[in-house]
């Protein structure tokens, strides 16, 4: 425990954050202008942090690999953002949001952090409305809320199906204001390739200008990493093509511990893969499960006929359909949490019941909803004994109003009309709960080096609830980091400008340049994607929705072998001093090839099933829960924090024991 100090303040959970803020050291406004902060990544977490730090008076340098902060992948979040405003008067409170988040995360998150998250959630909404974020409103002009992800209250604020976009554009506008004031220097089309540590503290980064290829040195008194998750380790995921783990992995190699890499979220409602050329997967909002019923054929023959295109789903009689979620989980049915829904789909498809050519798809059917809504509407409009066509027409209008844009998106991709033919869905990697270990201050194990948003190991434990990612990103950036970083920087007011001509900068720059030189000069035979796809296949098959000791051990050996081959045989066309997307990918895949191994090691170490991490060895053996995931609190109620020691396989495990004082640990049950 000596190394891993979570720095959680003393006192009752409800007062921790307030007391903490009252007591921390502050930086005098006149001194802030002598302090530089680097923020890498400008999504919700990085963008909001950069804007707020600049507004406080620090000099901020922000870095994004895209051509604008507005392109960060936070923009793709659809569903909404949670906040314990209790506008609906349905009994919501900070405690309830805290409780739901810890329970939903299967008791693998740090209580004090999660409580603080719930506490500041309301501020986020105030802030965003003041910024001009056009949240959905009711006819009285007040903010509308919906219930999301199977929780019992309506606390999700939304902006159509584009909540992430609107929140990001809000943070982007706040950044623009500071860029205009000269308080943020924005470096678009730049990628951080290493962090520079001087006398044990983070003092800058090495970045590559992606247009010219120039390698640049940037110094600062503190460095903030906000570069998102590592879902692309699977090659196929709902992440953007450029989403990568390089910044997080580089700081790991320079001393930041990496926590719970095996905690990844596989989202149940994505559009299935159609062929080997597939480059990414598209998520359909989870809200679809509120009205859609999930099924596969009950008979293997029917499944086979569907796979071969000889049968249409609408030709399968009601009694020949297996609504497996409703069958297995009568209490929650189609609304079971993401991890449960994903595994159940995989189980059916593995057993041969998949419904498309690849055998990896299940149906999400709206015909019952259309009928139910149609009948309801007929009643409301006083239509006596309406025809089936009328019921369909009325019901379809309601479904269209609720999910029209999603249906349209589906139709564009799959070329099938989901009002008439059930949608096909399959799970895909979506979010990574694991990430860089941080203490209560969001500081990593390297002084002056912070990590926020999805990039840190976060407040979501082993499973993230819907509409919580946006909340955490903005909480970290707007309301938590700006306080906690001040405490650290109060000791930096006399440091002065950090020089970039130190041996540490020389060395970091040299290693970056050497690696680039290697890539552009290596006379290999295979493209970067060739290796990325192979890695993705290992990860998906052996570290995917369901994991076991044998598979994980194989994965570790296979990834290592693949990495060795990569470093011999990878081929990168083009030069170092120009815009070179293949070179960018090469660096990112090289890091994924190391991270993947640590991921598998972590999954192997955690011989329990919790949240998104399902170990086949750890299931309930009998009783009502037979075959369901079994958590093991006696042995595994800890955060695994890995220390880098030269090779992924040499990593040393440190444990942060989790204490639950305000919540009683319970096994999840959705039966």
């Amino acid at each position, binding site marked *: 425990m000596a190394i891993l100090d979570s720095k959680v303040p003393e006192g009752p959970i409800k007062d921790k954050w307030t007391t903490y803020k009252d007591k921390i050291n502050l930086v005098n406004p006149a001194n802030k202008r002598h302090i530089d902060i680097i923020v890498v990544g400008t999504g919700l977490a990085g963008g909001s942090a950069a*804007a*707020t730090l600049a507004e406080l008076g620090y000099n901020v340098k922000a870095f994004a690999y*895209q*051509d*604008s902060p*507005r*392109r960060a*992948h936070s*923009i*793709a979040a659809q569903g909404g953002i949670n906040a314990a405003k209790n*506008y609906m008067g349905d009994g919501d409170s900070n405690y309830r949001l805290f409780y739901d988040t810890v329970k939903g995360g299967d008791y693998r998150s740090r209580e004090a952090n999660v409580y603080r998250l719930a506490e500041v959630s309301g501020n986020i*909404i*105030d*802030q*965003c*409305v*003041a*910024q*001009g974020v*056009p*949240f*959905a*409103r009711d*006819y009285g*002009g*007040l*903010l509308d809320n919906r219930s999301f992800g199977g929780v019992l209250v309506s606390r999700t604020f939304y*902006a*159509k199906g*584009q909540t992430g*976009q*609107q929140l990001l*554009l809000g943070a982007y*506008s706040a950044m*623009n204001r500071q*860029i*205009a004031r000269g308080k943020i220097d*924005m470096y*678009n089309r730049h990628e951080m390739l290493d962090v520079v540590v001087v006398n044990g503290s983070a003092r800058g980064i090495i970045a590559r200008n992606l*247009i010219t290829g120039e390698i640049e040195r940037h110094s600062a008194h503190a460095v903030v990493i906000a570069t998102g998750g590592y879902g692309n380790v699977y090659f196929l995921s*709902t992440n953007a*093509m450029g989403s990568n783990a390089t910044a997080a992995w580089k700081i790991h190699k320079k001393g930041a511990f990496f926590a719970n890499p095996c905690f990844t979220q596989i989202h149940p409602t994505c559009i299935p893969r*159609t*062929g080997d*050329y*597939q*480059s*990414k997967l*598209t998520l359909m909002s989870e809200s679809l499960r509120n009205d859609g019923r999930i099924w596969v054929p009950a008979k293997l023959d029917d499944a086979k006929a569907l796979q071969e295109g000889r049968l249409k789903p609408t030709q399968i009689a009601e009694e020949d359909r297996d609504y497996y979620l409703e069958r297995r989980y009568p209490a929650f049915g189609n609304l079971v949490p993401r991890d449960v829904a994903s595994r159940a789909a995989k189980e059916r498809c593995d057993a041969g019941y998949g419904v498309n050519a690849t055998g990896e798809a299940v149906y999400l059917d709206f015909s019952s909803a259309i009928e139910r809504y149609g009948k309801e509407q007929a009643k409301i409009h006083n239509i006596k004994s309406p025809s089936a066509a009328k019921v369909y027409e009325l019901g379809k209008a309601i479904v269209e109003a609720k999910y029209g844009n999603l249906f349209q*998106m589906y139709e*564009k*991709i799959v*070329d099938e009309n989901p009002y008439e033919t059930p949608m096909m869905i399959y799970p895909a990697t979506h979010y990574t709960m694991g990430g860089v270990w941080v203490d209560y201050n969001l500081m990593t194990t390297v002084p002056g080096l912070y990590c926020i948003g999805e990039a840190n190991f976060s407040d979501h434990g082993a499973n993230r609830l819907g509409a919580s990612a946006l909340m955490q990103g903005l909480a970290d950036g*707007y*309301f938590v980091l700006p306080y906690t970083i001040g405490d650290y920087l109060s000791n930096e007011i006399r440091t002065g400008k950090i020089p970039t001509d130190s041996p540490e900068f020389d060395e970091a720059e040299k290693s970056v340049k050497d690696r680039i030189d290697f890539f552009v000069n290596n006379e290999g035979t295979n493209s970067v994607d060739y290796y990325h796809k192979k890695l993705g296949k290992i990860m998906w098959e052996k570290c995917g929705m369901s994991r076991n000791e044998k598979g994980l051990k194989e994965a570790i050996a296979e990834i290592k072998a693949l990495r060795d081959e990569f470093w011999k045989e990878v*081929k990168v066309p083009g030069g170092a001093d*120009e*815009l070179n*997307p*293949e070179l960018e990918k090469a660096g990112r895949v090289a890091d994924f090839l190391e991270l993947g191994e640590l991921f598998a090691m972590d999954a192997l170490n955690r011989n329990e099933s919790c949240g998104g991490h399902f170990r086949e060895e750890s299931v309930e053996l009998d009783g009502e829960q037979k075959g369901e995931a079994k958590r093991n609190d006696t042995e595994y109620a800890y955060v695994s924090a890995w220390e880098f020691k030269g090779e992924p396989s040499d990593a040393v495990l440190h444990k942060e024991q989790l204490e639950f004082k305000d919540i009683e640990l319970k096994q999840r049950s959705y039966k």
Partner: protein
Amino acid sequence: MNLTLKIWRQKDSKAKGQMVEYKVTDISEHMSFLEMMDVLNEGLVAKGEEPVAFDHDCREGICGMCSLQINGEAHGPDRGITTCQLHMRMFNDGDTIVIEPWRAAAFPVIKDLIVDRTAFERIQQAGGYISINTSGNTQDANAIPISKEAADKAMDAATCIGCGACVAACKNASAMLFTSAKVSQFALLPQGRVEATERVMNMVKQMDLEGFGNCTNTGACEIECPKGISLENIARMNREYLAASLAKS
């Protein structure tokens, strides 16, 4: 299907570019347009040639990064979508497809199909924000009711993804649709009214400085906009601008 591609290749911003012809074979109609480009590039890499550089990221029509002029149309032949959402089923076996970068003086080519859209950034920095501190010490979110109609309209304007298709589609390379979307969003909300005068003046001024052309109301931008941003926004910005000019004079 088998296709002939005619693609603009340009080494960097200073080099002279040219159209180069490529063949791709066995393209599935279920592929997205950018997946077809991946197939082309994978082939080029295998042959030791430099792949075609193009911008893309989310590949789900929301980040606004992708940007191709396909057979003369911004984001290609389909409507209401971005290039990354375009599917090959829109094309036929044997087709020749012409692929160019956005063409506009304010969007110089960086390499091949990638253009520099930072002019858009500077327009946003000129006023695309509400001057509110991010400290969180603001009033309660429900303190000012906003009619559903205004909120919905503001949302419709706010869905702009900043891809630049409007500029590429316009014969004058005007950025009116882009600029007006942000001006409208804030003009429709009480929070945005406070600075409405300054905002519209500053954003329009920056837009002109960047070298975007004038709007002659051809409506091409609205047709090619993947998010259906309406011309109404341009009308609203013109009203705002007029009112602001009068207020200033």
